[in-house]
């Protein structure tokens, strides 16, 4: 350490003892898991609505149950991550457009109301008109629910997340669609699950393509996606999701077991993918070089008088 303490030249220390400029996110495992559960619920609500429109009642029912199950665990995850869980209702104390978490809280609340009413109506057979309207509303609100969490993390000083703001919503949206397709494939009889299988494959392709574009565009700033725990998670996620998508999307058309095994792999892959993005953000905040470097580059590009 003593060699660090006395730098040889005045411009040598591009950092203060290598310490991070930023604080790393304090969010724990519940948050990346919520990114999955919230996103899967939103996309499942959309899948249920589309299946109903297409006349696939079996898939519509299973997707509706999937939407309900995943939206039910979401607030539990979010509340348990709070430093003061008993104050969770403060999330709805104000509506703040400048805070994606505030916007998201209201979105989540509205979507869960829609999904809950639609599910109860479906199970009891009561109030068919309200049930249909709620299902449609949940489907519409479900689409931004799959992508807003990307806005939430992109609107931070974490270099990887903020600089990846153009692609992250597509990563999260694609991942949510893949997860919803995979979950529905797992719980729907094979002969009715065709659209779910195709959605699992398509979502995986969208997520994978968006991740690739983001990694290329960010250059060395994307290093945290490839290194450390984030890199290992990303590697496992890619293998699981890609092979799972091939299994369920291609081979799964005729082989129910291949479809289910593939769907399980896609779902696991998408959970690991979110976890990887989450960890990569922390890793990029921990190294001052990723904070200072782009800012110096920005200054060089637009010199101030």
């Amino acid at each position, binding site marked *: 350490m003593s060699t660090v303490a006395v730098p040889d030249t005045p411009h040598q220390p591009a950092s203060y003892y290598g310490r991070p400029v930023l604080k790393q996110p304090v969010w724990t495992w519940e948050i990346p898991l919520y990114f999955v559960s919230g996103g899967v619920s939103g996309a499942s609500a959309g899948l249920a609505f589309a299946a109903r429109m297409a006349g696939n009642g079996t898939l519509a029912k299973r997707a509706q149950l999937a939407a309900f199950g995943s939206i039910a665990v979401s607030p539990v995850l979010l509340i348990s991550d709070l430093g003061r869980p008993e104050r969770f209702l403060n999330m709805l104390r104000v509506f703040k457009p400048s805070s994606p978490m505030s916007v998201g809280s209201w979105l989540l609340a509205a979507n869960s109301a829609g999904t809950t009413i639609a599910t109860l109506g479906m199970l009891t057979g009561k109030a068919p008109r309200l049930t249909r309207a709620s299902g449609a509303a949940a489907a519409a609100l479900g689409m931004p629910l799959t992508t807003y969490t990307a806005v939430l993390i992109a609107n931070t000083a974490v270099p990887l997340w903020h600089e990846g703001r153009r692609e992250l919503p597509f990563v999260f949206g*694609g991942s949510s669609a893949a997860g919803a397709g995979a979950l529905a494939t797992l719980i729907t009889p094979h002969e009715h699950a065709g659209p779910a299988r195709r959605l699992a494959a398509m979502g995986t392709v969208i997520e994978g393509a968006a991740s690739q574009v983001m990694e290329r565009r960010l250059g060395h700033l994307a290093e945290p996606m490839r290194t450390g725990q984030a890199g290992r998670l990303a590697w496992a996620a890619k293998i699981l999701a890609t092979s799972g998508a091939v299994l369920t999307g291609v081979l799964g058309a005729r082989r129910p077991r291949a479809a289910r095994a593939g769907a399980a792999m896609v779902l696991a892959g998408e959970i690991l993918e979110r976890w990887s993005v989450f960890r990569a953000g922390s890793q990029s905040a921990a190294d001052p070089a990723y904070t200072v470097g782009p800012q110096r580059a920005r200054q060089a590009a637009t010199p101030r008088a």
Partner: protein
Amino acid sequence: MSHTVIQLDTNASADSYGAEAKQRVGFFTDTSLCIGCKACEVACKEWNGVPASPGAFTGESYDNTGALGANSWRHVAFIEQRRPLSVEESGPGSLVHAAALEDLRSRSAIQPRIEDGFRWLMSSDVCKHCSEAACLDVCPTGALFRTEFGTVVVQEDVCNGCGYCIPACPFGVIDQRSDDGRAWKCTLCYDRLKDDQEPACAQACPTNSIQFGEHGALRARARERVKDLHDQGVLDARLYGEDPGDGVGGFGAFFLLLDEPEVYGLPPDPLVTTRHLAETWRAAGVAAVVVAGAISSAFLGGRR
């Protein structure tokens, strides 16, 4: 996107506070006067009842605080630099220093060289109370708010510990108290301001390195000080955070530094990311439409 902007040199948030609005106040921390006594750290802890931040010897010069955090609202950085002595860059003091070295050389076996100049930078860091504050923008509960003095404060009875402000701050200032769950940072001694008292750190500072006052007056004084230092040959002196055109609209608490900001652990070009929020939402909107398209097209291959 609608984020909180307050103009420098004007009454803070006059539209929210009406007649109760006060002149915007802040800190000018002149690090060329800092002697590293840490009285500011101690006074802050004492006045605000900030819990101890037990640490260990870091080996990083005299700094065992390390960084700003939930339990450290002032942090004195110590930077040791070996650099050649020069009359131009170090001012009149360096001539004395050079003479002392010459004297040492003539009377002992020690052979110091003129290149062995040594410089110690000390700086008391604090929350910047940004004109466009990211922590305030992202806070979902409204716990963080802009006071009538133009400062940014957390209401501890509202904060639910969501943690969003922590990675949002471009300076890594605000943090969560682990045993408490809530986010904490400098309040610029909001309670003292209400009683027309200056913040504890500024009052305790023995060299006036920490200067508290009306923001416009502080900025004028800071520009004057830089000019004086340049005249004295201290060409390294520069202001940090004084420019309203920077990425956070200027700092309420700004600095005079003697080296690049990153040397002190500060970001050279901080940005409130809320400025990019509209384009990020647009991308999310397009992505949501893509998801809807993927779901719809999944049914094109037939009902099965």
